[in-house]
C-alpha cells in the first residue's frame, strides 16, 4: 500500500461512515467479555438486522469503566450504557426502543460528562470507543498508520528520533528511562541486524493496562514498533506477550496479518525502502520474564533468567544484537507523537514527566477500571474524583502503586502528583500502572505479606538474596501476621529488605522489599501492634554471682 492508497482508504471509509445513522461500540476487552459483552454485541447485531436503520455495530477496546460492564458507547451523543443485558442493549438500536421501556434504558445511561470520563485525557486509549480492534480500516480511519506513512515519506530516521526526544516521553514499563535516549543508543550501533522488542509481559497483580491496549488497539502498537524500527535501523520486531493474554495474542495475530496483507508491514513498508516485520512470542507464565534480559533470554529459547547488565540490550541484546526494548504503552504513545509532533506531547504533563499515564484502578473503589490521566494529576483526583472513592462511605487508607515493586502511599499524601520522581520520593514507584486502593479495614501487614509471597513465588532463583531472601521475608511477615514474631524479627526484616535491595541481581529482587519498606515507613504501628515480646528473650533473673552476694 502506498501512502496515497492509505489516504484513499481512509477517505473511502470516512465517506461510508457519513451515510450511517449511528455507530454502537460494544466493549470487547477482557473485562467486559467476562461479564457477557459478546452476547450484547450479538444482540445488537441481530437487532440491527430487524430494522431499516443504517447503523454500524462494532466491538471496541476497553472503555475503562470495567465495574459497570458490559459497556456500550453510542457515537451520536457520546453516551455510555453500562450493565447491559443482551435484551436491554438491543433497544439502543434506532427504531428498536420498543424493546424495553424508556425508563430502563435511562437507568443504564452514563453521561460522558461524568467525572470518570470527563476528567480523563486519552492519548494511548484514544481509540477505545472509536475503533474496532479487529478491523484495520477502523484504525486507518482514526489516522492510523498516518505517522508511519509520514515518517517513511517525509522524515529521516534522525528526524523521527528528534521528535521523540522533543516529546520527553519516558518508558512506561516502570523505571521511566527516557525513551529517546534508548532509541539513540540503538540507532548509533553499527550492526546491520538490530531488533525491536515490545515487552507485553505485563504481570503485576491487578494491572491490565497493556492488555487493554493490545486487545483494544493492536495496530497502534505495531505502528509504534515500526516507527522505532525506522528510527533505530531495525527491520525485525518481536512482541513478547504474556501467555495468559490469549485474546491479546489473537488480536495481535489478526492485526499483523492485516498489516502484512495491506503491505504496511513487510519488505516495503508503505511502498518505501524500509522493511519491517513483527513476530509474536508467547510467554509461559513467569513474571520474571518481564525483566528485559530475562525476556530476551526467553525469546532466544533459553531459560527465562535475567543476566547482569552491562552490556545493556541496546549494545548487546537479543541474539547478541543491539536491541531496543520498550513497553506496550511506550510504543502506543509513539504514533500520536509523530503525527502531532513532540512539542504537542511535551505540552502535556509535568516538567519531567510528559504525556499521560494509564492506570488500572482496583481494590476498594467505586469505579474499578482503566483510567488515563495527564502526568501530574494528583492521586486524590484519580481515586476520589474519577473513580468515586471508597464504596459504602468507607475510609480510604492508602493507595498502592507499582504492584509488587511499588509501595503504599498513605491517604495523607494523596495530593502527590503522579510523576516518576514524586512517586519514588514517596517510597513507591510509577511501575507499569497498577493502582490498588485500600480502605481502613485492610491490614498493611497482610498487604506486605501478599506482595512478598508474590515475589517469592516469582523469583527465578538465580541469585541468593532474591531466591532465599524473599522466602525469609515472607516467613517473618507471616509470623507477624499470626502474632508470633518478636521485635528482633522486625529488625531482621529491615535488614533483609536492605540486603535484597542492594545485592539482588535484577529489578525483581531489588524492588521486592518496596511494599514492605513503604508499609513500615507509613504504617509501622500496625506491625508493632502485632509483635509479641518473647518471655524468654532476655535473661530476667539477677546473675548468679549477684545472688550469692
Amino acid at each position, binding site marked *: 500500500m502506498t501512502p496515497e492508497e492509505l489516504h484513499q482508504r481512509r477517505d473511502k471509509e470516512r465517506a461510508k461512515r457519513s451515510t450511517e445513522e449511528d455507530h454502537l461500540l460494544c466493549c470487547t476487552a477482557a473485562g467486559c467479555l467476562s461479564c457477557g459483552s459478546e452476547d450484547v454485541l450479538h444482540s445488537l447485531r441481530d437487532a440491527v438486522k430487524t430494522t431499516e436503520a443504517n447503523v454500524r455495530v462494532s466491538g471496541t477496546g476497553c472503555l475503562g469503566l470495567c465495574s459497570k460492564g458490559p459497556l456500550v458507547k453510542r457515537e451520536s451523543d457520546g453516551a455510555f450504557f453500562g450493565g447491559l443485558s443482551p435484551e436491554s442493549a438491543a433497544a439502543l438500536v434506532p427504531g428498536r426502543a420498543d424493546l424495553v421501556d424508556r425508563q430502563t434504558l435511562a437507568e443504564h445511561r452514563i453521561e460522558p460528562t461524568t467525572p470518570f470520563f470527563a476528567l480523563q485525557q486519552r492519548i494511548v486509549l484514544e481509540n477505545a470507543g472509536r475503533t474496532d480492534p479487529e478491523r484495520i480500516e477502523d484504525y486507518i480511519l482514526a489516522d492510523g498508520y498516518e505517522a508511519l506513512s509520514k515518517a517513511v515519506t517525509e522524515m529521516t530516521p534522525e528526524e523521527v528520533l528528534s521528535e521523540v526526544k522533543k516529546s520527553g516521553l519516558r518508558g512506561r514499563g516502570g523505571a521511566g528511562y527516557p525513551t529517546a535516549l534508548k532509541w539513540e543508543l540503538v540507532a548509533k550501533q553499527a550492526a546491520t541486524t538490530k531488533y525491536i522488542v515490545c515487552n507485553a509481559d505485563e504481570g503485576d497483580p491487578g494491572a491490565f493496562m497493556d492488555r487493554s491496549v493490545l486487545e483494544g488497539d493492536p495496530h497502534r502498537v505495531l505502528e509504534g514498533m515500526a516507527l522505532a524500527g525506522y528510527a533505530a535501523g531495525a527491520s525485525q520486531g518481536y512482541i513478547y506477550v504474556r501467555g495468559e493474554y490469549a485474546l491479546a495474542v489473537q488480536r495481535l495475530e489478526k492485526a499483523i496479518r492485516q498489516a502484512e496483507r495491506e503491505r504496511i508491514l513487510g519488505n516495503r513498508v508503505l511502498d518505501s525502502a524500509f522493511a519491517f516485520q513483527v513476530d509474536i512470542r508467547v510467554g509461559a507464565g*513467569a513474571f*520474571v520474564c518481564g525483566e528485559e534480559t530475562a525476556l530476551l533470554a526467553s525469546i532466544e529459547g533459553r*531459560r527465562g533468567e535475567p*543476566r*547482569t547488565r*552491562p552490556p545493556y540490550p541496546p549494545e548487546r541484546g537479543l541474539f547478541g544484537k543491539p536491541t531496543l526494548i520498550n513497553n506496550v504503552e511506550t510504543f502506543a504513545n509513539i504514533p500520536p507523537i509523530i503525527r502531532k509532533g513532540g512539542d504537542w506531547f511535551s505540552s502535556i504533563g509535568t516538567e519531567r514527566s510528559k504525556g499521560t499515564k494509564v492506570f488500572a484502578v482496583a481494590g476498594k473503589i467505586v469505579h474499578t477500571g482503566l483510567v488515563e490521566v495527564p502526568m501530574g494529576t494528583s492521586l486524590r483526583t484519580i481515586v476520589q474524583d474519577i473513580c468515586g472513592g471508597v464504596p459504602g462511605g468507607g475510609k480510604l487508607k492508602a493507595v498502592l502503586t507499582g504492584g509488587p515493586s511499588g509501595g503504599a502511599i498513605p491517604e495523607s499524601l494523596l495530593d502527590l502528583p503522579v510523576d516518576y520522581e514524586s512517586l519514588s520520593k514517596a517510597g513507591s514507584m510509577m511501575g507499569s500502572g497498577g493502582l490498588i486502593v485500600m480502605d481502613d479495614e485492610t491490614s498493611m501487614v497482610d498487604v506486605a505479606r501478599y506482595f512478598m509471597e508474590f515475589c*517469592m*513465588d*516469582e*523469583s*527465578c*532463583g*538465580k*541469585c*541468593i*538474596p532474591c*531466591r*532465599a*531472601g*524473599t*522466602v*525469609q521475608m515472607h*516467613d517473618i511477615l507471616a509470623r507477624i501476621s499470626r502474632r508470633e514474631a518478636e521485635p528482633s524479627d522486625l529488625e*531482621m526484616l529491615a*535488614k*533483609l529488605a536492605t*540486603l535484597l535491595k*542492594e*545485592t*539482588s*541481581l535484577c529489578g525483581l529482587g531489588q524492588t521486592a522489599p518496596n511494599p514492605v519498606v513503604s508499609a513500615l515507613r507509613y504504617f509501622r504501628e500496625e506491625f508493632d501492634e502485632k509483635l509479641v515480646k518473647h518471655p524468654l528473650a532476655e535473661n530476667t533473673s539477677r546473675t548468679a554471682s549477684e545472688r550469692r552476694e
Partner: protein
Amino acid sequence: MSVKTLKIDGEMVTGRAGETLFNVAWDAGISLPRLCHVGGLSDVGACRLCVVEVEGQSKLAAACVTPVEEGMVVHTNTERLREHRRLLIELLFAEGNHVCSVCVSNGHCELQDLAVQLGVDHVRLRYQHPKRGVDATHARFGLDHNRCIFCTRCVRVCDEVEGAHTLDVSGRGASLKIICDLGEPWGQSETCTSCGKCVQVCPTGALYLDGASVGEMEKNRRFLQYIVTAREKREWIRKG
C-alpha cells in the same frame, strides 16, 4: 590493549580493559568471597558474595561481572559489605539442608569455610528444611539436592568445558532443582560422559564421588586451569 588504572581498598592497581574487578582484585592479592565464580568458567553473578562498593555509584557491584574502568575507586571490605555477605551465607544455610556433621564435604566445603571466614557463628533466620531428595542412580557420582546452593558451576562446566550440557536448572525460586537431561535420573542420562568435572567444581557436598563418607570428599579443580589454558593458548594444536 588498553590498560585501566583504578584503586581497590586504597591500592593503585591496573587491569586490562574488559577484565573483571574480581580478577584484577585477585591479581592484587585481594580474594573476594565467592561461590558461583570459578576461574575458567563463564561468570553469572549469582551468589552476590563478591559485591563491592564503587565510589560514585549508588548500587553495589558484583565484582565477577563488573568490568574495570579507569579511575574507579573500589572498597571490598566495608562493614556494610561484611554484613551483607554474612546474611547471604545465613540465607544459604537456612534454605537447604546443610547438615555438616553428616556431609561428605565436612571440613572441605567452600560454604562452611566462608561461614567461618565471615564470622557466621549461628543462623539468625528460620531453617526451611525443604524436602529435596538425593539422586544416587549414577554408578560413580551422587547428587544430594539438599546440599545444593544453585551456584550452577556444575551446569557451566558440563556445558562449557565438557560440552555435554547434561546438567541444567529447572523450576524457579524455592523449587529450583539441578536436573539431568530432561529430568531423568542421572544414571539414565544418555548425554552424561561420566567425566566427573561437575563433582570437582561443586563448592559443597551436593555432588560427590560415590562411596565417599563424612568429610572424605575433597575436591580438586586444577584440571580446569590446564584445560582452559590449553584452549586459550591453543597449546594442543600441533604446529606444522
